[in-house]
């Protein structure tokens, strides 16, 4: 087989193999574990770089492996998968650096990093999945790989959070599985093809297609945390900060959102889905989630929980963009896949820094933290402003395209109020944090100061990752029109989707 047929498989293996090796390492072999982690992440970045170049030059990358009659494991690179793979790979590298610093002294690091690598493997696998069957496999693998990460601390709360997480995700997984098998019985193997493949099916099957759509969206909606399927997400906050960052910014919620995008664009085709009348309910569910998540975030004093409800809200922008027919809304939804990831991971890194350095877990403890930890707080502020949608941070671009798309599709009457309300609510729960951090003076000692301020405000490996991702979020907004920017990829995807 040629290199082109191996590249997608190699990208998946580049985190799988280090992960497997890490499991076998002794707790003490810190250096070897770190080199495996970083080596795998850098190698993956290199391979993804080659893939981006190749996809741009119209190379076809496809690895195929037959598992059973009619069931092929297919890894395939297209514009959408490249977008998600690049995001995951980049953020994996950053999160690995962060996690090495964060977990410096805690027990069971081999187990943690092993499952962490498996988690990335599953994410990359579902990003590259070339058909629904492969997607389902990696979707379930992701559930399995993240369970030990949520349960990592082994405390009763962690075990409980992990159990709730599983109840939701496994039930969702079963629904998705039933939907996919049903669809495959009707239409044969379902490869992801831009514009969808179902519009040729006879009209008498259309009601069944509606039910299948419902099953699949319910299954995917659990991970995408669409109300009322979001209950696991705040509970999963018991996980260590790098896990929360990865779970909430990249892997799990994005897997759900990415799945929704795939099903609508590459299985049904957005125009066919609209014709079947499936998009309106999806859009309404997304709109409800956007507002509900923001309202709940307002009343959370625990910083990570506030961020979690914010995630519930923000991820549904992607579903909203998907549910609006028209290329501009598509661009907004798809680009938010990247933008939300970069911004939210920044916020979680910063929250982890406050907890690890000063023992701050609550918003009410953050008075004056900006002076003690300026770098972290600056990164946090950029992320928060982006979430609100303040230009020039990336979040503004997403909201702009979503709003324009709604106008173009004639849905401005209800989408615009949702966007405005959500942005106001975003401001209402983020700005007070920024105000406390920058403008209030700290009342007394920090709750539990563990890392003293020396040259840097905290460990370097904790400080640099949020700063890096904050800069990325800024750059994605400032240079949105530059070649290879997330926006440009999203435009490419939208152009291909609506070409037919």
């Amino acid at each position, binding site marked *: 087989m040629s290199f082109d047929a191996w590249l997608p498989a190699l990208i998946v293996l580049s985190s799988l193999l280090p992960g497997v090796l890490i*499991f*076998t*390492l*002794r*707790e003490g072999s810190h250096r070897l574990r770190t080199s495996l982690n970083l080596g795998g992440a850098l190698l993956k970045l290199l391979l993804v770089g080659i893939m981006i170049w190749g996809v741009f030059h119209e190379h076809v990358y496809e690895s195929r*492996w*037959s*598992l*059973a*009659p*009619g*069931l092929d*494991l297919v890894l395939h690179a297209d514009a959408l998968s490249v977008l998600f793979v690049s995001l995951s790979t980049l953020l994996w590298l950053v999160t690995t650096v962060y996690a090495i610093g964060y977990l410096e002294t805690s*027990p*069971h690091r*081999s*187990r943690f990093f092993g499952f962490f690598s498996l988690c990335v493997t599953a994410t990359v696998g579902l990003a590259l999945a070339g058909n629904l069957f492969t997607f*389902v*496999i990696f979707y*379930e*693998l992701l*559930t*399995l790989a993240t*369970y*030990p990460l949520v*349960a990592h*601390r*082994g*405390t*009763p709360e962690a*075990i409980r959070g*992990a*159990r709730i997480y*599983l109840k939701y995700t*496994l*039930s969702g*997984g*079963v629904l998705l*599985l*039933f939907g996919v*098998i*049903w669809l*495959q*019985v009707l239409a044969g193997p379902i490869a992801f093809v831009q514009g969808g493949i179902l519009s040729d099916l006879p009209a008498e099957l259309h009601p069944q297609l509606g039910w299948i759509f419902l099953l699949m969206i319910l299954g995917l909606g659990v991970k995408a945390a669409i109300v009322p399927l979001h209950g696991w997400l705040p509970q999963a906050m018991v996980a260590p900060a790098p896990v929360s960052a990865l779970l909430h910014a990249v892997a799990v919620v994005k897997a759900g959102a990415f799945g929704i995008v795939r099903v609508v664009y590459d299985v049904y085709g957005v125009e066919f889905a609209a014709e079947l009348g499936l998009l309106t309910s999806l859009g309404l569910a997304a709109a409800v989630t956007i507002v509900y998540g923001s309202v709940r975030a307002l009343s959370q004093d625990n910083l990570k929980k506030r961020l979690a409800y914010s995630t519930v809200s923000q991820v549904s922008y992607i579903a909203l963009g998907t549910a609006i027919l028209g290329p501009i809304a598509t661009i907004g939804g798809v680009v938010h896949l990247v933008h939300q990831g970069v911004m939210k991971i920044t916020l979680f890194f910063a929250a982890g820094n406050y907890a690890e350095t000063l023992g701050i877990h609550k918003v009410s403890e953050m008075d004056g933290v900006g002076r003690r930890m300026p770098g972290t707080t600056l990164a946090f502020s950029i992320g928060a402003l982006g979430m609100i949608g303040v230009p020039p941070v990336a979040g503004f671009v997403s909201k702009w395209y979503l709003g324009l798309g709604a106008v173009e599709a004639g849905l401005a009457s209800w989408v615009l109020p949702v966007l405005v309300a959500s942005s106001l609510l975003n401001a209402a729960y983020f700005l007070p944090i920024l105000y406390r951090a920058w403008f209030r003076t700290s009342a007394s000692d920090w709750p539990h100061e563990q890392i003293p301020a020396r040259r840097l405000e905290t460990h370097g490996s904790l400080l640099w990752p949020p700063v890096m991702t904050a800069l990325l979020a800024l750059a994605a907004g400032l240079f949105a029109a530059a070649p290879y920017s997330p926006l440009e990829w999203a435009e490419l995807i939208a152009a291909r989707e609506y070409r037919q």
Partner: protein
Amino acid sequence: MTDSLVWSIALPLSGAILSVLLPRAANGIGLASVLGSLAAALAVIWTVADQGPLTYAIGGWTPGLGIALRADGLSALLLLLSALVAVAASVYATAYFRQAEQRQRFWTLWLLLLSALHALFLAADLFNLYVTLELLGLSAAALTALSGQREALEAALRYLLLGLLGSLAFLAGVALLYTGYGSLDISTLTHRLSPGLTGWSAAALMTSGLLIKTALFPLHFWLPPAHANAPAPVSAILSALVVKAAFYLVLRLWLEPFASLSTPELVQMLGVLGAIAVIWGSWQALQAERLKLLAAYSTLAQIGYLFLFLPLILETSDETLRHAALGGLLLMALTHGLAKSALFLAAGVVQQHAGHDRIAELRGTAQALPATTFTLALAGVALIGLPPSGAFLGKWQLIAGALQAELWWMLGVVLAGSLLAAGYVFRLLGHAFGQARYPARSLSIGRQEIPALGLGLAATLLLGLFSAPVWSLLAGLAPAGGLNP
């Protein structure tokens, strides 16, 4: 290459005899003979894949009086499963038994059981099947009693007596078939058998005898105490292989000689019993307080899944559906064989380490026994039927088949069964992940942990990713409607 059929039976048999004569070398003899029979099983499957079904008449005697052996894709796959599990469990056993006397008894009975099992998979006529069934039942009951504890003795005796009843019913059916059709050769009978009182009574007697042995609901009550009280390697092979041998016979008989007798109602009934077994077994496993009891109840549920496939295989004229479902069935059976033996072997390690196997008190297991906990997780993934296990592909075929055949009730059963299985597996893992004050250990290399881990990996990765040959091996096996014109 037909010799390999004989070797797969003869090696464990001679090992059993040698282990009596040279008790001190029992470990070595045992390992050598199971490795040899694994090589023979590999040769068998290689040849079957290459040249199609194999037959061999022992000593050149013609079938009828002589003993004939036969291997097709179905029996070759199960033979390989058995040889593979046997090797892993044998390596484990070399470290498991601490008393010399117990170890020597174990090896003799163990190798005897293995040769009976292999002979059963390869037998081409009904009387040999009866003999192998009896040998299997006797050696299995004796192995169950190995610990000599009261619960074990009681369970073994009940197991033995019910097994005897089952094989008597089987023998009665064999006698009826010989009276009616004058042959015991399976393929001859397949051509001669036609619907009628003799055929139906024989089928009823033989099938109900086998249902006792495979522990299908409501004939399952003997299984949990027997499997939960036997020594770990014995439980592994009882749950993974011995009950499956009886199921194999049900499948073989209804695919071949009884194919012309099958009616939709009958097959549907077997499917419904399987469905009840899935729900009942999983529910009991969820309630179980001990790890080995959990594993035993989960076996009841898994046997139920195998019966759930029967309506898709025996009552369909769609050749593609039938072939897909047969492959799915085999894959479920193979995955369960590997996963359940992994689970029991791991449970044995947990029991030896903690001194008990009460699930609620297993906190800290993940810290103290990481490799074994990982094995439990792998086995659990396979039992739930999550990817990348072979059972995922099996369940996929089951669901797809049920949708195609419009058997909607089956979807509910698979849904409930999978969620219940997830419930009992993750209840166990939740306790195992609980923090306790054990000294943390990295992966421990043990003669007990490694074989269990290997089986767990085989159930998930090997069968999940490399199982396409299963379908090609089963191609052409017993076309729809039996071989009768």
